């Protein structure tokens, strides 16, 4: 199985860019239309897989990126002298979950749900590149709002958060009950799914 010229060109651009590249930007650089970029990305992904390559093409929302497969993590860390990152703390996971399901959200929203101060956790998630500022809310104080990044999608191994969102059947039932209880109460909102 051989890469054709188009697949090779896309591979070259993705390799050189390093970061996730918007489909629109690829279309512009390669002078193709969006649809073609998506098709070629799919066939490139397929061929790399068949060839037993250590690289894979991942789609992250409207971006495409080449990254290494998980099983080579150990060798890479060793060669590049990278320490294995510690798993996220419970606090960080909770903040991340709230942002995933409700984004974009303010710090105040997150703190209200968790019942504790979250400034440090938010800052460290930003520094890890898993969340980022997405502007400000047009409210008094103009609070910053936060959302997820394509790095997070890559670390989760999904191409869109919607792949995570569907809550289990059983839980949905439960939620309906809760909704029912609280609809009676004015202004109250349970909002897990944005």
């Amino acid at each position, binding site marked *: 199985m051989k890469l054709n010229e188009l697949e090779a060109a896309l591979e070259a651009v993705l*390799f*050189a*860019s*390093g*970061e996730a590249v918007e489909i629109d930007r690829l279309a512009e650089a390669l002078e193709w239309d969006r649809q073609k970029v998506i098709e070629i990305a799919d066939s490139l992904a397929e061929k790399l897989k068949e060839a037993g390559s250590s690289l894979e093409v*991942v789609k992250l929302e409207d971006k495409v*990126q*080449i*990254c*290494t*497969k*998980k099983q*080579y*993590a150990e060798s*890479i860390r060793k060669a590049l002298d990278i320490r*294995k*990152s510690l*798993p*996220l703390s*419970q*606090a960080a*996971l*909770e903040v*991340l*979950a*709230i942002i*995933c*399901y409700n984004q974009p959200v303010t710090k105040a929203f997150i703190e209200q*749900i*968790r*019942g*504790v*101060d979250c400034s440090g956790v938010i800052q460290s998630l930003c520094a890890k590149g898993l969340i980022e500022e997405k*502007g*400000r809310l047009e409210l008094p*104080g*103009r609070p910053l709002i936060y959302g997820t990044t394509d790095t997070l999608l*890559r*670390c*989760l*191994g*999904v191409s869109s958060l919607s792949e*995570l969102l569907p809550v289990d059947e059983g*839980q949905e039932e439960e*939620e309906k009950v*809760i909704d029912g*209880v*609280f609809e009676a*109460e004015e202004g*109250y909102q*349970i909002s*897990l799914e944005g």
Partner: protein
Amino acid sequence: MEKISYKLEVFEGPLDLLLHLISKNKLNIYDIPVAVLLEQYMEHIDKMKEADMDIASEFLEMAAYLVYLKTVSLLPKHEEEAKNLKMELTGQLLEYKAVREAAEKLSERLDFDTFVREPMEIEPDRTYKGKISLVELKKAYFAAVGRGKRRLPPPETAFNKIVKRKVVSVSSKIIYVLKRLFKEKRVKFESIFENATSKSELVATFLAILELIKGKRVKVATTSKGDTLQLAAKKADEI
């Protein structure tokens, strides 16, 4: 070192602790028995104190909330309010529980085992080549400083309340209350709070009074006219 015989479980916050107590005691989250929950909650706070842990003010705020909820539940003619407060707490707990479940799902999927490349340096020149609009720049300035309402950053003292939040321990307030009662014998209930300057101080003072009542060190009574609440130290024969 031998003093520490057991390690107290650390909770992410008051909601985390409440959920733990609810599941441990198999309480009904949809109809929380407030008195039981409050008792267990305070027991845990006590343990935290014994273990010399810093108790974040959020834990004390929740304690005050539970006390309030219990009080309202005991008062006649307040059934409606009590019901609403309880539902609010239930909602908060369920929401937090859902977040914890979502967090667990995330942690199952999350790993940092894929690697990407740094962008290739075709030319080391990363100079920005785009256009920046003057209007956008000005808008961003107002966004950053808050519509020009405060062009200059506020003085450092303005941040004291936010940054230098004082953590007030309940035990320090117990001493404060006892000292006042020792000097003045009888004290108007409200006047105990006169010197408190922050929310956490108010909460700590209130918790201190509850502690003292529970420990039968002080009593609360109305004046003979019945119009003001007074606090007095219990005499030895009353204990």
